[in-house]
């Protein structure tokens, strides 16, 4: 038996005009378990609130029903009112007779009748309400950033500057990401290294940043505020705590590997740093090209290293880190264009992909910034082909967004560095950014030839060996053309990292059709994800340029800060829980929950819901065949009872 108090609000005439409020109160008094029912002009006013509190004490009420405006309006107000009178806030029920009754009818009979039905439903439901308490948890103040491209670097610095401890995890042996491979950046053509290197150094020096290069996340446990993350430190075979970066070892090393950093254009040593400005400046050994690892003999590096830093016995090790929030900034890969055989990439030496070209321009690159082809010659004519694999139903539907702009950048740099004729084959010129159209206009004046038509095929010239023929339809003149050139540059689609599925699984992220991580909402929550406490920034969310990447990184840092800035956080009280006695182990709940809150306990053979992850949507409760799930505040019994009450009159 409960003791219910019903408080009917007139809201001035807002309600009273089309609902007979006193009749409603009288009706309420006749309902079972209702011990007091009153009406009053403004329930939300101080006297109204005091009346409720007074009655709670006087009548020893254990449930309160406020019959007034929408719960979206004043639920919180009245929750506080009853809480202050010593009742649990979840023992309140609001009956919405303003927005959903008095304001939508002009007939007082109708209005009164419907109000009675709604009130009756509330009484049925109120009887079954249970007090709920929200759990307060401690929040770990540290943040982890995954991926140290420009996005990760920027986010990490921003957070570290606020005084937060940041773990920056990078898969590569150096931080920097793609931006560090570039020579110049559009549209301002400022030197990439000039803006990025200081930031990389900053990361290295920052007392609040723990830089974890050559590392990968292997396990994520916990939830917002309390993630427990395991990181694998891959064996470097060089003890970085001893190494003083003299790099004597790299000179002596006879091993030969292919430089990933230089997009396989040149070779590197087996013990190496990817590029001269790499951070950290300390080498690693590539097991696959190291003579010792391959043949069992060599160890030259060990001999030359005065610091005794070489350690062939080193193993992968695991680091455990606890943080309150995570930013994922793992960037992108370029699409592999080899399967698009019509462009001859990998077959004709004269065909390059965009990142290779970036390296050609770079003064620290394989050609020291000179534009020479694989045969050592400077090209006399160059065709840049846009949209290779992008905006293409057969490969990737999306627009890679930056290709038009970097293709323009390439054209400019080719013009600057060579005397070649430069052709652009494009579908549409997309230059939607601040200063971008202006950059395009500038290129139009630089005597670059623009052909509006997608490059359809690249073949080898039969007349002039070594020369390439680009076939395309010029859609402006509607003419089919065959253009002989020395060099072809492909602008391949920007695609998610090859391992995006692993990251998505680890952090419970959704991905879009292409595999880019999905934001919670494209407009109003572009950096948060469906997993509370996990944020995304940079190209891992979708193709974008550096300015947008940096803006996102700063935003994500701010978002992460909103979590770790507090030392406690309150969890949702209206979460779901499993009654283990009723769980049949079907795992439906595990399959459907958007937040991965339920997990199957294989030992007990029942599901368990992690309240910290649950958002209280109730989906699991409706797919649970044996009604084992209690969706707090919206339990099956409560909903059924409310329905019964609503349908009685």
């Amino acid at each position, binding site marked *: 038996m409960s003791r219910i108090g019903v408080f009917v609000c007139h809201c001035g005439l807002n309600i009273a005009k089309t609902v007979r409020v006193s009749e409603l109160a009288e009706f309420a008094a006749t309902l079972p378990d209702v011990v007091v029912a009153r009406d009053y002009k403004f329930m939300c006013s101080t006297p109204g609130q005091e009346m409720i509190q007074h009655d709670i004490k006087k009548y020893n009420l254990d449930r309160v029903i406020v019959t007034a405006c*929408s*719960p*979206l*309006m004043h639920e919180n107000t009245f929750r506080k009112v009853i809480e202050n009178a010593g009742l649990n806030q979840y023992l309140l029920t609001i009956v*919405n007779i*303003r*927005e*959903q*009754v008095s*304001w*939508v*009818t*002009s*007939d007082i009979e*109708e*209005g009164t*009748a*419907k109000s009675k*039905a*709604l009130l009756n*439903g509330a009484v049925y439901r109120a009887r079954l309400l249970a007090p709920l308490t929200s759990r307060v948890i401690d929040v770990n103040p540290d943040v982890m950033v995954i991926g140290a491209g420009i996005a990760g670097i920027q986010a990490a610095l921003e957070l570290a500057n606020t005084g937060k401890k940041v773990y920056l995890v990078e898969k590569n042996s150096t931080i920097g990401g793609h931006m560090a491979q570039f020579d110049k950046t559009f549209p301002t053509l400022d030197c990439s290294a000039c803006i990025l290197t200081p930031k990389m150094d900053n990361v290295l020096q920052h007392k609040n940043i723990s830089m974890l290069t050559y590392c990968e996340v292997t396990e994520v446990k916990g939830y917002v505020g309390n993630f427990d993350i395991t990181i694998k430190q891959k064996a470097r075979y060089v003890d970085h705590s001893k190494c003083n970066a003299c790099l004597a070892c790299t000179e002596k090393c006879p091993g030969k590997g292919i430089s990933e950093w230089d997009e396989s254009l040149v070779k590197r040593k087996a013990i190496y740093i990817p590029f001269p400005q790499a951070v950290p400046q300390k080498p690693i050994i590539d097991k696959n090209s190291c003579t010792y690892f391959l043949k069992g003999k060599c160890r030259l590096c060990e001999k030359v290293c005065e610091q005794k830093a070489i350690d062939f016995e080193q193993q992968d090790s695991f680091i455990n880190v606890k943080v309150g929030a995570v930013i994922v900034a793992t960037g992108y890969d370029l699409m592999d264009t080899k399967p698009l055989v019509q462009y001859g990439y990998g077959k004709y030496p004269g065909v390059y992909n965009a990142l290779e070209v970036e390296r050609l321009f770079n003064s620290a690159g394989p050609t020291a910034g000179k534009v020479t082809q694989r045969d050592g010659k400077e090209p006399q004519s160059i065709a840049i082909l846009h949209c290779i694999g992008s905006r293409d139903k057969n490969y990737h539907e999306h627009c890679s967004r930056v290709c038009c702009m970097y293709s323009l950048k390439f054209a400019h740099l080719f013009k600057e560095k060579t005397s070649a004729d430069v052709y652009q084959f494009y579908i549409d010129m997309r230059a939607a950014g601040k200063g971008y159209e202006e950059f395009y206009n500038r290129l139009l004046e630089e005597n670059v030839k623009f052909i509006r038509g997608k490059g359809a095929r690249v073949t080898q010239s039969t007349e002039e060996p070594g020369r390439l023929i680009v076939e395309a339809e010029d859609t402006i003149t509607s003419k089919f053309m065959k253009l002989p050139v020395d060099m072809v540059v492909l602008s391949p689609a920007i695609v998610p990292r090859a391992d995006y599925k692993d990251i998505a699984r680890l952090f419970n992220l*959704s991905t879009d059709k292409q595999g880019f991580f999905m934001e*919670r909402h494209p407009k109003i929550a572009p950096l948060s994800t*469906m997993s509370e406490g996990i944020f995304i920034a940079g190209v891992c969310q979708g193709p974008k340029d550096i300015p947008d990447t940096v803006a996102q990184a700063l935003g994500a840092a701010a978002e992460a800060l909103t979590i770790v800035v507090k030392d406690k956080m309150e969890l949702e009280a*209206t979460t779901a829980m499993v009654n283990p006695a009723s769980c049949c182990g079907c795992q439906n709940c595990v399959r*459907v929950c*958007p937040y991965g809150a339920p997990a199957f306990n294989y030992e007990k053979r029942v599901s368990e819901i992690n309240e910290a992850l649950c*958002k*209280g*949507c*109730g*989906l699991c*409760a*409706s*797919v649970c065949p044996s009604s084992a799930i209690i*969706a707090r505040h*919206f339990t*099956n019994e409560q*909903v*059924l009872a*409310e*329905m*019964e009450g*609503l*349908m009685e009159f």
Partner: protein
Amino acid sequence: MSFEPKILGIACNWCTYTGADLAGTTRLKYPQNLRVVRVMCSSRINPSFIFRAFQLGADGVLVGGCHPGDCHYNTGNLYARRRLATTKKILEFAGFEPGRLRVEWISASEGNKFAEVVAEFTAQIRNLGPQAKLKIQE
């Protein structure tokens, strides 16, 4: 007296319930036959809720959720769509009028749509007449 249908509404908190509030705030008028239960997400709706509503004597049941893609919980309504569609097929094969169950996606800004749907559905149920098949005869 003319037949006044009893219609049970089940609305998700974030879109349809808020949309219904907006209809009120903009003082739109619609028939008063609808009685709404608020749930957090349309996916909370267990098929048995629908069967039960008809057993309790609802002449019609109107389910409101966010538009697909806009669910506050991301994908709840996409599950709801499948589950409610199946519920409807079951009712239909049992020989029950499937038209007594209606599912509408109504966003928080669609107060108009809410009012229109309620008016339309009420008229439709009025046409169908009282629901006696599943209603528990006391």
